[in-house]
């Protein structure tokens, strides 16, 4: 079986499954309410990702209720939109860059309730842990 490529429909479904298997995420995210667009933007000098990719995740009280690759970005109005370039996201999902660090240093951009994000740092950490359990391929 081939490895899911980050970012793709296969990858985000694999993350959904990982989150719903994770007792640590269930506990850490128990107070979380709000769906996300994770926007992966092209880096300046790479042709691997010609256009932004939108991943939708509906996160609710420690579970992921739905997740998919978005084809029409206007189809949803998620509570949170987190954006960064592909290279930054790659560092996040391989646990080289903490997403809260990324926010505080401007490497990741967020639209949505900042307080909600800053008080749920443990959930963000467990989400990254789930990402690292996906044996993924990355664009070169």
């Amino acid at each position: 079986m081939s490895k899911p490529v980050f970012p793709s429909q296969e990858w985000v479904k694999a993350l959904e499954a990982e989150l719903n298997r994770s007792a640590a995420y269930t506990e850490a995210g128990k107070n979380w309410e709000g769906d996300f667009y994770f926007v992966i933007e092209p880096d300046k000098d790479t042709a691997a990702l010609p256009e932004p990719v939108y991943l939708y995740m509906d996160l609710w009280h420690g579970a992921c209720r739905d997740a998919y690759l978005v084809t029409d970005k206007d189809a949803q109005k998620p509570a949170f939109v987190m954006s960064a370039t592909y290279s930054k996201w790659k560092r996040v999902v391989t646990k080289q860059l903490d997403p809260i660090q990324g926010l505080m240093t401007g490497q990741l951009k967020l639209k949505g309730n900042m307080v909600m994000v800053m008080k749920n740092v443990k959930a963000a950490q467990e989400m990254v842990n789930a990402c690292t359990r996906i044996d993924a391929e990355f664009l070169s």
Partner: protein
Amino acid sequence: MNGYIGRLLFVDLTTRAVTAQELNRDYAAQFLGGSGLAARYIYDWIDAGVDPLGPENPLVFMNGPLDGTGAPSSGRFAVCARSPQTGLWGEAIAGNFFGPELKFAGYDGLVVRGRADAWCYLHITPDGVEIRDADFLRGMTTFDAGDALRAALDDEGLVTACIGPAGENLVQYALILATSARPAAKKGIAGRCGMGAVMGSKNLKAIAVRGSKHPRSFKVPLHDAARFRQAMLRAQKFLSDDMSTEVFRAVGTSGTMDFLGLLGDVPVKYWTQGQFDYSKISGNLIAETILTGRGTCHACMVACGRKIQKAGPYVLPHAEGPEYETLAAFGSLMLTDDINILSHIGAQCDALGVDSISAGSTIAFAIYLHDLGILPDAAGQGARLAWGDPEGALALVEQIARRQAFGAVLAEGAQALGARYGVEGLAVQVNGMEMAMHDPRAASGMAVSYATSPIGASHNYSDFFMVETSGRPIYELGIETVDRFQTHDKMRSLARHQDWRTINNALVLCFFPNPPVQEMCEMLAAATGYDVTPENILTYGERIWNLKRLLNLKLGYCARRAEKLPELLLRPLSEGGTEGNVPDLDVMLREYYQVRGWDWETGSPSCEKLEELGLANLVR
């Protein structure tokens, strides 16, 4: 003299002489302003024989070349003197509107000498300077004294810097608080090093400053106004788009509590535990419950100040809420998780005029010693010394400020308390300065940052944990991303970060957040005409850092005795985000000395280094 007014105000309270002197252009060109420029002046004026609380110890308020220009994050000021708390170089950096207002009144800085024969205050305007009787202010809190002055002088535009009862009573860690009548103004806390005690030792209760009645008409002279404006607009654009601006605006400095707590950065139960429910003492909780507005300093784009009219039953003076350090010092450090009373305690520290880091740390240390049975019940003179007892801690804050009962003992600080019971090594301090609320076991570089800081265990001379835990490198300056537990090959970045923050404290710039380096250099160069670029700016910081080292050596600093970590921080924690890490200070320090070009035995910069930095004449 572009970027500067070109004048320093000198007030001798003994002789009541008031003079203005031309600013030393050479000093300004080499040491910029703020605590850098103040250090250069003070180097000429004091030696080891000067009593920190004697009339011969000059107290210097200094603003910077970007103060009043509109450069973002630049509206701060430095207060400097020999510290009564450490006996070493002392500096405290604060915001509000005091620095720019002093500049608008016509001065780059104020030097106070001598001792008045009765309590007095200074009234400074462009029209003149008066030393006035302050008997009516005696015993007042910092907030009340400022408000009383504005009322007495019938001038709501006055910006004041006042001491509280703690400063009057020479508490070793008394602060100076700057306030103004603007509803959205953030307090300016010159908290560390006991600068409030130095002010109190001069019988100086307050300084009231009023610049031009029409501040918008006042223009700081600029070398190249068009270039300055272009750089400033770029910096403003960057900061308005920057996420950290939004983070600190939304949740304040204490909004990082949950994140830093997860990494083990926030101390618990006097540095002996690794876990706590940080969400109960966090700026995120404040934002969702009791926050009523945001406070700002001059030329700030962030507004990290927390405005809280009422926290539970407590009405807060000037609606000033707590910052991260206060919430940690009286919260997790003492196992207290009531955000309402913690906000009240923080406000009381500011009002009574004690540094909340030192006060909280000293009280927590007393509780720790009591818990161990080292500090007997009788010694506490009725004080409540228990974990999770905020009312007991609040009562002690009041006793400290007035030097009453056991407060008189705690007013001398944690090191003295430890020495009193033969356990000085257990006090979490460096050189007499209680440690800031960032555990070096969570970010090893902080061990060297604390050990080598010119003022003791402060995080304001390199908040290197932000590089180590928050991934905040500054690549333009060669400050690289490092693993937080890494021991080797970290010191070059740390030294550069110290130099950078030293420049921040000279300019005088806020850390939350900085404009980009390129724009900072452009603004400074365009304001002053100095040749400042990202390639050479760190030389200014290194020069000032080495100057402060020379000054401390002149004051009797002994590096090999001083550069230690307290015992408790050499013990690994079995739980929490430090993951059992203990920093190897000796290995890092030796690398640090190589990077700095300092002699290991004497702690002194090498002759070559001093020549390189233009400081050799100071030691000949």
